[in-house]
């Protein structure tokens, strides 16, 4: 892999991590000493994607203009990797008028039509929407691709089955990405999924299925690349599962008492590992790392500033945008 791409993948992951750490800080800032989910500048549920950066970075690195991403309740990493406008995204998370949804959506409902990004809080139900986007792309003769993201828990929803069958049947340019972080809230994969790898489920639709075992951004990049090439060339959908890591709780406030593997989690963080690899290979050095981090911080803090300075929506406008 060329070192430019490596550096970009690294930068993307650092940006995402910086974003999630910053949202973490802002989310909890005014929920002390007693945690109240509805209080503070960022209220509501908060699902952060720290540890899952390799998936978003590795997949979205292949996206071109006009490709779409349909993400889940845990959407920030894919949003950033897919080029969603960071200020408007952050303002939406803060519930402000300059947000992507003018404060109506919130963190699970980010819609950026320019970047072609959307997400949904209902498990598995983003996938059919991606199939339809791909249908439109194909009908219009573009070589665009729809990226559909799901957790490993979502792979047991009916919508998963229906979407893969439809995309395979109609040979649509969809890449189904399963983020296997081992957990669906508190339920481990072994208690939800009858097979050890969702890649085998691709056989049920006659499409290629691959599982990346190491949560390494370069492995994801490589396997995703094949899927993109296939999709752009009329070869139809692919299923790509990545064994990844939920570094933090399911949502903020989750004490993770149920989690048996908790002790080993920090040591599995994919970013230090990748950083070390690139350092060892001489692709990056101290100053690059420093600059990457400080640029990320600058960008993210600016977005937070933007969000905080945007007004809260006027209550009298609550009824706007129900109908077009």
């Amino acid at each position, binding site marked *: 892999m060329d070192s430019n791409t490596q550096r970009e993948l690294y930068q993307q992951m650092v940006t995402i991590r910086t974003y999630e750490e910053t949202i973490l800080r802002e989310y909890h800032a005014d929920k002390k000493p007693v945690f109240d989910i509805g209080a503070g500048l960022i209220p509501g549920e908060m699902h952060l994607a720290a540890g899952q950066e390799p998936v978003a970075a590795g997949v979205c690195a292949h996206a071109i203009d006009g490709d779409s991403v349909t993400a889940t309740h845990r959407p920030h990493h894919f949003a950033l990797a897919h080029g969603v406008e960071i200020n408007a995204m952050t303002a939406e998370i803060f519930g402000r008028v300059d947000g992507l949804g003018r404060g109506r*959506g919130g963190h699970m409902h980010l819609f950026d039509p320019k970047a072609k990004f959307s997400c*949904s809080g209902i498990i598995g*139900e983003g996938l*059919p929407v991606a199939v339809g*986007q791909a249908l*439109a792309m194909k009908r219009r003769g573009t070589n665009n691709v729809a990226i559909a993201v799901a957790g490993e828990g979502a792979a047991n929803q009916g919508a998963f089955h229906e979407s893969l069958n439809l995309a395979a049947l109609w040979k649509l340019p969809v890449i189904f990405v399963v983020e296997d972080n081992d957990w669906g809230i508190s339920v481990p994969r072994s208690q939800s999924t009858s097979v050890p790898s969702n890649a085998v489920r691709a056989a049920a639709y006659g499409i290629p299925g691959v599982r990346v075992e190491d949560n390494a951004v370069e492995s994801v990049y490589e396997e995703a690349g094949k899927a993109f090439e296939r999709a752009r060339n009329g070869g139809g959908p692919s299923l790509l599962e990545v064994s990844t890591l939920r570094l933090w709780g399911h949502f903020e406030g989750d004490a993770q008492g149920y989690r048996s593997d908790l002790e080993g989690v920090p040591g599995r963080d994919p970013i230090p590992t990748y950083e070390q690899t690139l350092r060892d290979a001489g692709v990056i050095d101290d100053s690059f790392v420093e600059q990457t981090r400080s640029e990320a911080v600058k960008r993210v803090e600016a977005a937070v500033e933007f969000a905080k300075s945007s007004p809260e929506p006027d209550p009298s406008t609550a009824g706007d945008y129900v109908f077009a």
Partner: protein
Amino acid sequence: MTTEATGTRRLNTAKATVEAIAREMERDENVFVMGEDVGPYGGIFSSTTGLLERFGPERIIDTPISETGFIGAAIGAATEGMRPIVELMFVDFFGVCMDQIYNHMAKIHYESGGNVKVPLVLTTAVGGGYSDGAQHSQCLWGTFAHLPGMKVVVPSNPADAAGLMTAAIRDDNPVVFMYHKGIQGLAWMKKNRRSIGPVPEGDHVVEIGKAAVPRSGKDVTIVTLSLSVHHALDVAEELAGEGVDVEVIDLRSIVPMDTQAIIDSVTKTGHLVIVDEDYQSFGLSGEIAARIAEHDPTILKTPVGRVANPDLPIPYARTLEYTVLPTPERIKEAVLKQVGR
């Protein structure tokens, strides 16, 4: 606004609807049709007859039995600028795909702060009366109308079906188009005589949200929709001979609902009978009564009458099914009760 073209022909509701779809498909290549048996079969209730031959399998797409999958796909295509017409064969099947309908189709526009549009028509067949049992005979418009973000239209005759379909396709919002099997004019089902009727030639649009008053009267108001409009008209004709002058309001659209038309009529007559083939409680009939009670309960000279399904699953046996349906007999009894007979 409601445009009325000049010439008319007599068509049945199915043909009138298909004609409207075809006209819009000619106008706009983004319009396409997707659903089970919409292709060679032409729709189980003839809702797409002939379209495959005319527009080909790229635009008239038979789907697997995967309602969540293909309705979701229609939503995705709509967000990409297409204008899908997607069919849920019977409304009774909504439970396998309701998440796409009410959490996605109906909410994306709002959640996106108006930045994403979902111009989509969800067509679905409703209604009973031919012993299709508890899972194939429901109306359920109350269920759809309760959930915000989608328009809900329910035509009762060929001209309105065509005009509302045209309006629905051109609307930038999701519109649920519910057609009663009993007014399609199918050769193989008991037909209401008004399932064939005059349909304007050319561009014909019925504004979504405007009720019709197919019969004016001064004594009692019947508010109803879909097949029951015809029962109401039959009863009104019969009662005219008995000295009771019935006004019939055909809602045509329940989201938005033409509340003013109802209030105006009840203000005039002082008597309201609501006829609704859906389940009685927590639905359309309740909402109509509530809008009067909210406006001014004193315009009611007698308690409101409701003729609806008495909150039970629709039974199979004909004797039982015709007990729960809003039959002309039940409607007549309710109207007579209003005038103290």
